[in-house]
């Protein structure tokens, strides 16, 4: 509201007393103000706390976070504490968020229109990022719309507001979280924020991203006239009922009020819906053991990416459902019947082989997700466009066994025709093509 720092002034990093010039006021929040600044000719962000928020505890927390370092580069992590002669309080420096990142609010307001593949990638990155954070004994405590951004072109995420990150189980940060995202046991005052409550907030955020709707807002929400704090406490804390709870239909989405939930839900494969169902049934009943873990979301979102198919008529992304198998439904967009492309089964993974499908190291080896490293791509035969194949982009030969039992090698740079019954030995793992 009032600018705490003057443009053009310099602040000092606490550790090495490097000078940092304040360049531009970017915005204010509940705790302080954020500026664009330059440190050694590099652009950084500088958050300066309001006097009431510049507590000794906040300072200790920041020092701890700076010493620990960022879990992954997706976090805009505190780099150094900053002080300024003649100005009260303190602030901290962090990387500046690139403008290509857009907030989840932009998605909620449909100001950006990412593809399902981008959403799945962003969800996967979020789950992975919070896994890395939690694995270090830290908890975020305030996963919500405002703190997470993603690139609508490729799904890369950027996680801000890390100064409330604390050590799980210790009263590090000073927040309960953001209403609508706070776990029910915290809303009821029975628990403090921590890793387990982060898992609930992550599930809410993912539900918002994939359904553009809140998982607990159904008929019970319609019945509320004045949506104030007591109403929110009841809906999100005292009587939380998942809108698609298979055992309790008291809070189903209401047509005309919750259309997004009704439209999006049936589009997704059963396994993905089941995961949300567990997150908001078992995950509410049993906060300690019932919640969906980050690694489960990560695996599920990787699988969801691979199940995308394009409608042959309108091009819209749809999903192959391993549970319903061959019975392709209709496209959600143009309502025409869908046709499944060939698919590759590798262990429990199913990869739909669209014209643009690619395999990554995680498909072929026990490796983590690296979408910059392509292991194979679907390719068209240069002499006969009617023939499609899978092109080997790895550094080693694949061994294929055709449906008739013939064995051949596929060297790097060459392709194997997509034919039902073909088995491909990628080295460590084997897959088979089904049509």
């Amino acid at each position: 509201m009032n600018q705490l720092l003057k443009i053009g002034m310099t602040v000092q990093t606490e550790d090495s007393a490097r000078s940092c010039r304040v360049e531009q006021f970017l915005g204010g929040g509940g705790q302080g103000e954020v500026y664009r600044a330059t440190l050694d000719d590099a652009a950084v962000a500088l958050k300066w706390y309001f006097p009431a928020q510049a507590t000794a505890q906040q300072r200790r927390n920041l020092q701890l976070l700076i010493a620990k370092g960022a879990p992954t580069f997706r976090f805009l992590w505190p780099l150094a504490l900053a002080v300024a002669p003649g100005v009260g309080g303190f602030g901290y420096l962090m990387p500046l968020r690139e403008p290509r990142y857009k907030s989840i609010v932009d998605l909620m307001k449909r100001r950006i229109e990412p593809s399902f593949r981008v959403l799945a990638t962003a969800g996967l990155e979020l789950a992975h990022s919070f896994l890395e954070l939690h694995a270090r004994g830290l908890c975020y405590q305030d996963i919500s719309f405002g703190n997470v951004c993603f690139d609508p072109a490729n799904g890369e995420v950027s996680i801000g507001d890390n100064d409330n990150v604390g050590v799980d189980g210790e009263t590090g940060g000073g927040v309960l979280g953001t209403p609508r995202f706070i776990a029910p046991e915290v809303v009821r005052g029975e628990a403090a924020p921590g890793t387990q409550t982060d898992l609930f907030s992550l599930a809410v955020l993912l539900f918002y991203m994939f359904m553009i709707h809140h998982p607990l807002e159904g008929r019970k929400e319609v019945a509320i006239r004045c949506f104030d704090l007591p109403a929110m406490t009841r809906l999100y804390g005292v009587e939380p009922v998942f809108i698609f709870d298979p055992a309790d239909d008291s809070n189903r989405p209401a047509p005309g009020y919750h259309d997004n939930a009704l439209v999006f839900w049936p589009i997704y494969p059963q396994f993905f819906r089941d995961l949300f169902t567990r997150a908001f049934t078992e995950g509410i009943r049993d906060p300690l053991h019932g919640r969906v873990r980050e690694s489960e979301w990560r695996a599920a979102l990787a699988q969801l990416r691979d199940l995308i198919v394009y409608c042959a008529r309108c091009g819209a992304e749809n999903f192959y459902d391993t549970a319903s198998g061959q019975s392709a439904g209709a496209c959600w967009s143009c309502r025409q019947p869908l046709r499944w492309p060939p698919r590759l089964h590798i262990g429990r993974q199913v990869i739909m082989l669209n014209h643009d499908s690619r395999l990554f190291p995680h498909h072929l080896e026990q490796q983590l997700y690296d979408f910059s490293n392509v292991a194979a791509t679907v390719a068209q035969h240069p002499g006969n466009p009617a023939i499609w194949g899978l092109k080997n982009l790895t550094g080693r030969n694949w061994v294929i066994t055709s449906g008739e039992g013939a064995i051949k090698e596929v060297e790097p740079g060459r392709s194997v025709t997509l034919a039902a019954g073909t088995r491909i030995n990628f080295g460590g793992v084997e897959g088979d093509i089904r049509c």
Partner: protein
Amino acid sequence: MPKLPGGELASRPLHFIWIADCSGSMGVDGKIQQLNFAIRDAIPHMQKVAEDNPNAAVLVRAIKFSNGAQWHIAQPTPVAEFKWLDLEAMGVTDMGMALSMLAEQLKIPPMSERALPPVLVLISDGRPTDDFQKGLSALLGEPWGRKAVRLAIAIGEDADYEVLQRFIGHPELKPLQANSPEALVRHIRWVSTAVLKSASAPASQPREGGVSKLNVPIPAPPESGDAAEDVW
């Protein structure tokens, strides 16, 4: 062709209503000009808060009182399209009439049954010259009047603090005292941003905040005095 089905996140209306004193005394020392300036200054910030909030459809209007009361901006206007029309000062302080007229508009209908708590901001520099209690009773007789977040800004030393406190109705929330143009700008900005945000999508809840009896968590108001001076 859209890449995703559906539409925007479902939201609820949030009515934000200015209740402005335009009595003759507001014409002294440029107070009415200061108020016009402060509200104009706050609008872009209000729009930014609304833009960042997918849960509320913010609708703004204004009622004024002097000799009687009338709607100054009668149409609940989406905040992105809201334009302030300058107020002029003249006459007495019929605050009770303004509250009665407000109560009429908070009936269901014209109000919808489902909404976020309305935010009512009463700004005055003097004492009511009509039956304030009658107006307040009418307002509190409406469910949306009772549920509303009611805030008051006292301009100058002559404002009736006690009346403004009765309008607020919660002893833990005090009228905001604006004894300088800077303080008025700060208070107007605060009610149209921080309070607006709290009424629709409260920000991160501080752990030490102490759960209040209010039905909307009101963040700490800007510090009294000139906070900028304290820092510099």
